[in-house]
């Protein structure tokens, strides 16, 4: 139909757009939200890359990435709410 590359570009654009919020802020939580969204999108991007290169091994990378990103966001969020 359209082709993988187009989706890669599309998702890449989405990553860049969320990066805008990261740099813009204004609050730390804003940036963190941006990171959260960015990592979610990047996970999808990785999975798509796996297909692009036809290598299932990248799926494992995406999984680990998702786990680490989740914990990272939680840690920062807990820190920001003053819970730690």
């Amino acid at each position: 139909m359209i082709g993988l590359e187009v989706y890669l570009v599309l998702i890449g654009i989405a990553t860049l757009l969320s990066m805008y919020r990261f740099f813009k802020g204004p609050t730390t939580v804003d940036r963190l939200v941006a990171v959260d969204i960015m990592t979610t999108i990047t996970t999808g991007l990785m999975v798509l890359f796996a297909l692009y290169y036809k290598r299932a091994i990248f799926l494992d990378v995406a999984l680990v990435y998702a786990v680490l990103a989740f914990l990272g966001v939680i840690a920062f969020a807990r820190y920001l709410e003053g819970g730690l």
Partner: protein
Amino acid sequence: MVKRALAIITLLLIGFWLAKGLVGVPFGEDKMLVGEYYLENVKEQTGAVNAVTAVVVNYRGFDTLGEVTVLFIASTGVGALLWRRKKERSAKSEGSVVLTAGAKMLLPFIMLFGAYIFVHGHLTPGGGFPGGATVATAFLMLYLAFKEYEIDHKVFEPLEGLAGVGYVTVGLIGLAIGGYFLFDWIWQTWQFGHENIGRLFSAGFIPIIYTLIGIKVGTELTGIVDNMIKEEPKGGGQ
């Protein structure tokens, strides 16, 4: 301001110099010498499909032993530096039920992911380090969710040590059996799993070492988190 300007000028000149050096190392061109040898021989020499893993555990096993040591030092160092006569968690509030229940639910999964990653180190781009890190995040999650949570130090520290002892022991068995430290006796002497290349039961001692590393890294990173997250209670000096 002057400092920044000077810094920028200095850095640009340094950058130019580095770039000048890198021109002689053209990007994207094949510069392999030893690397090629690895790619060609990795399967029959180590049984690993993942050449990086074979390099990490077999060919450059010494580096990896060192790498494990570095992390061990960091964990030990953090433990030493943040040691207080009395330490306790100082978390001010617990996460909501969403976080606590979520943590409880995710804990086994994340640990299983971690185990999956280090067991498959010779087949996929994982290995002991990311696997161990994943396991550690499971514990980190508990720390983040619960105010009172604390790992069982009686188990963690000896386990960390034991995993290291195990690694060195595997290496020493290689010395005793094959005549070389860190010799892959399972693959090369016992020839175990030669018919299994590409499947789980292959690659000699790589899965064993990666499991040990995974345990070690998991316990170490958890220990680091534990040390960093705790504080000396107010008023109680050393």
